[in-house]
């Protein structure tokens, strides 16, 4: 019978058949189905044509468990009113249209099967058991793992791992380790720890090494030519600590000191475009070479933003000054001044926010030696012009202004929970060698859009954005943000030479 055939084959075929086999079988099925349908016998008809209409149904038909039913009496459960239900058959036309779906879907199914089985395996290991306590994958030592993933045109594909161990040597403390490796020798090994000392004091200890085999250099000043792109190998090693003291409501002081060694070397890749070859007549001071010294930085900050995930009021302000003293025998000594002002404004509707930010950095040479170009100010996180690469401009100072319009696109359980916000942004700014270079003619304007992954009101998790400028289009995947840049930099193994 066609019905039986369809029932059986319909179940066998449901999304499990290998492509070529499915193709052959489905054609066979189609043929048999058509034949079966055509050849199906006529339906049995009642023997009697005498009419019972005009009589109410007999009690044998009606007495049952549903006295008072809207359908009239419903019989009691017995074989005459019971049936074993089976799945319906898939009609031949549907089988026919499903064949391409099955065939094309094979690679997707294989991939998904892998994902599915991986998730099931991880679940059986209990790795999702405490996911709510902290972000990341919990491993038996009560440590949480997070992947490090980034894609850059020079760094290539970077993959690494972050490990966070909470309550390290005491409640509220933390140990952080990160290691990442890229496809083009842009590797990082860093770590840090945070310790609470009483209610108002914390100390961060951190260190690490970071190298980028292909670091860009276009020239000094605001008008360096994009066509003069060159590369050098930059390697930074650092170690130090930071004391944080709460001095008032939402106000704190930071004292940071660290030793750093910055090297500028010949690149291994793109030798034809090495800094030495491209800028042969105008090689910046410090290339090739290295600079080693201690930096002391004192900063005052005020953070009255209402949260770090989806802030809609308050802001973040900081003022800082740092002193660099060479420890490599040179007379290099310089001061760096830094100011940062951020503010969040709630807009129309729910959680539509305008974030604005201005920053200013200035180096003042107080020693008797030139400052190597590797110690100059450039646009690095968080002081970015996001339509340009981070090392597009070098100078003795920088200033910039950013605006971000944010709106929620995925809200899991409210603004205090994880989700995704979209944003449009605009960054304008410039570097300068001397203050007189600050002018509208030298200002660079960039813009773009992105998505912010918010892990909870505890903070921000990642951003993916597209930055546009007159020179480039840049895609970024970052685990840090321009606004509310995480002040626990030493803990998280952040290269301190990037922050002024």
């Amino acid at each position, binding site marked *: 019978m066609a019905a039986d055939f369809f029932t059986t084959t319909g179940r066998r075929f449901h999304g499990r058949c290998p492509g070529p086999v499915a*193709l052959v079988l489905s054609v066979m099925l189609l043929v048999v189905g058509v034949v079966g349908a055509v050849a199906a016998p006529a339906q049995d008809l009642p023997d009697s044509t005498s009419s*019972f209409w005009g009589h109410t149904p007999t009690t044998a038909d009606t007495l049952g468990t549903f006295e008072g039913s809207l359908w009239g009496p419903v019989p009691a459960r017995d074989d005459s009113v019971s049936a074993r239900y089976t799945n319906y058959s898939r*009609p031949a036309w549907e089988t*026919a*249209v499903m064949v391409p779906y099955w065939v094309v879907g094979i690679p997707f199914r294989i991939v998904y099967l892998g994902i599915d089985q991986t998730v099931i395996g991880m679940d059986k290991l209990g790795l*999702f058991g405490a996911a709510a306590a902290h972000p990341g994958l919990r491993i038996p030592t009560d440590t949480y793992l997070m992947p490090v993933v980034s894609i850059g045109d020079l760094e290539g594909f970077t993959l690494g791992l972050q490990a966070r161990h909470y309550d390290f040597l005491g409640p509220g403390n933390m140990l952080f380790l990160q290691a990442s490796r890229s496809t083009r020798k842009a590797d990082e090994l860093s770590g840090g720890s945070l310790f609470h000392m009483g209610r108002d004091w914390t100390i961060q200890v951190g260190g690490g090494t970071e190298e980028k085999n292909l670091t860009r250099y276009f020239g000094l000043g605001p008008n360096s030519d994009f066509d003069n792109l060159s590369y050098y190998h930059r390697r930074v090693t650092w170690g130090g600590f930071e004391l944080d003291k709460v001095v008032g409501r939402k106000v704190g002081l930071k004292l940071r000191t660290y030793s750093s060694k910055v090297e500028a070397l010949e690149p291994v890749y793109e030798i034809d475009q090495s800094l030495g070859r491209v800028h042969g007549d105008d090689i910046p001071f410090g290339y090739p070479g290295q600079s080693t010294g201690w930096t002391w930085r004192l900063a005052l900050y005020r953070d009255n933003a209402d949260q770090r995930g989806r802030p809609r009021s308050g802001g973040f302000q900081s003022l800082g000054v740092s002193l660099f003293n060479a420890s490599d025998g040179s007379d290099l000594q310089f001061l760096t001044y830094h100011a940062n002002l951020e503010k969040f404004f709630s807009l129309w*509707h729910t959680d539509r926010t305008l974030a604005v930010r201005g920053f200013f950095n200035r180096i003042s040479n107080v020693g008797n030696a030139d400052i190597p170009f590797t110690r100059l100010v450039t646009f690095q996180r968080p002081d970015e012009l996001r339509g340009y690469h981070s090392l597009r401009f070098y100078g003795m100072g920088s200033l910039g202004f950013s605006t971000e319009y944010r709106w929620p696109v995925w809200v899991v*359980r409210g603004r205090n929970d994880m989700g995704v916000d979209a944003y449009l942004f605009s960054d304008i700014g410039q570097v300068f060698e001397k203050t007189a270079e600050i002018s509208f003619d030298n200002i660079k304007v960039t813009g773009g859009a992105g998505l912010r992954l918010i892990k909870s009101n505890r903070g921000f998790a990642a951003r993916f954005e597209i930055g546009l400028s007159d020179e480039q289009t840049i895609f970024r995947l970052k685990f840090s943000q321009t606004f509310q840049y995480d002040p626990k930099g030493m803990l998280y193994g952040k290269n301190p030479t990037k922050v002024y």
Partner: protein
Amino acid sequence: MARIRPRSTRRFPSPRPGRGAGQDICFLLLLVMTTVPWSVPALAIEPLRDEPVVWFADDRSPIEAPEFQEPGLVPYAVDSFVGRPFSRFWNPGRFFRWVGTGDRVQESVDINTLDEVVNSTWFTNRIGLKPLSEAQLTEGAAHGRGFAAGPDRSAPWTIIGAKTSGVTPGFRIKDATGDVWLFKFDPPSHPGMTIRAGVVTNLLFHAIGFNVPVDRLVMFSREDLVVGEGAMMRLQRVGKVPMTEANLDSVLVATKSIFNGQYHALASRYLDGIPLGPFDDQGTREDDPNDTVRHQDRRELRALKVFAAWVNHFDTKMHNSLDMYLGEPGAGHVRHHLIDFASTLGAFGDALVKRFGYEYGFDVFPITGRALTLGFVEDTWVSLERPAGLDEVGLFDVDTFDPGGWKPDLPHSGMANLTTRDGYWAAKVLSAFTDEDLRLIVRQGHYQNPAAVDFLVETLAGRRDKIVRYWFDRVPPLDFFTLTEKGIEFHDLAAERGYASVEESRYRFRLAAVGSNRNGRDDGWTSWHETPVSLVPLFDGSGRLADDIPQGDADHPFLAVEVQVNRGSGWSRSTVLYGAYASGRLVALDR
């Protein structure tokens, strides 16, 4: 015992494959794309048979007890959010069927020829088929079983286990009769909210027809509890520790579920039988030979979308269900239950979430829409607010409720297959709840503020009305045809239940003698007869078929009665009833 396929299984003419498989497939696709969408509704359906209407599924055959199995929440969520929706979205069969019929799948399987769900180990027709007594409504699964008052109170309850992890604390207690009950409390931030909602929705779902545990609201004092010997307590980040009277005190205080000096809790009686784990909303349970219908094709699980929408039961993940093996090992069968209704009526844990019921936890289309509209369009549900002054009520309203757009938190394979007829059936069941029925049930939540009862009754009634109007607009609610001495009487549910004016409703019908394939004779249908009453007169004064009624013959043994309704905006779609001349049975109903 009959073995049946659903009556609505349609057969479609299929082109013959030719020489090459590739050409054939292309040809078939082309043909299907051009013809199927238009031909699907007109094609033949299951033949009529002069047999008793099936009202029961034969799914209680003795089987060996299946193994307990419970997939993890994360793998299930990944499958529900990614694998299954992706598979449905790209399924061409669903697309073509949607173009042709408006529904993405075939009709449900576990229905009889009168378009009703049959009684089974999944579902028992209750209020949908006949009014329930006050006791049936208010006692729910406890009715007739002696549990209506909750755990036995002839002796203090012995705590045999406790947990403090998660949002809400809870105990397991054993009463004097040996029954084990799970006591659940509210999250401290919302005392009185989830436990009352859990009790009310449990009763509503029982009245609808689902198998549910006995959930009662209990009030007790500290003296009613004693810590049992060996009772353990699970603490977050610590694990299990022995439970003492002292830490029982601290847990009780932390619940904040204290009203007029008494603790309030939801007491859920452990289900009878051997627990087998939850049932999936897709596929069948391989180790249960009685589980022969894919769950996504069971009408009661498809219609769960409508029922859940009514009470905003967004948390319909598989882990809120439980299969139980009933009977002696080897001689029992599996019964399927829905459990845990605490996240309903706008309640949820310690943080109320406006999105619940309006979007999936991860919903691609709204997310894309919000991204593309740059935040200039606000979601409807953002305006949802709790009723002022009613601390025991969560985010639950009528104004923002969209009966067609409601969604659970996790996509549900059964709900994704909801057809128009499934939706109509569910709305028909809901329309059977009167406001008084709702009030009786809501009172079982023992809300401390009488205004909360009024609000919930009004809101449930308002949401019910929205649902019913939505589906009755899509399927004419002409139902419950019965043969009487006057002829065939039917119910216009919209007029009877207050969704349409009786005075403005007119009906028309026509008749034909048809064969088992539903085709009539050459003389075809009679002309239309209009009538202001829901009756198709058939008989003359002597009780025989009137002369102008088509007479059956050997090839046309069934009388077809096609009925339409007009409420001022034209005639509705048809509802066609089939009766057998030979037996007088009403054998099938087509919508």
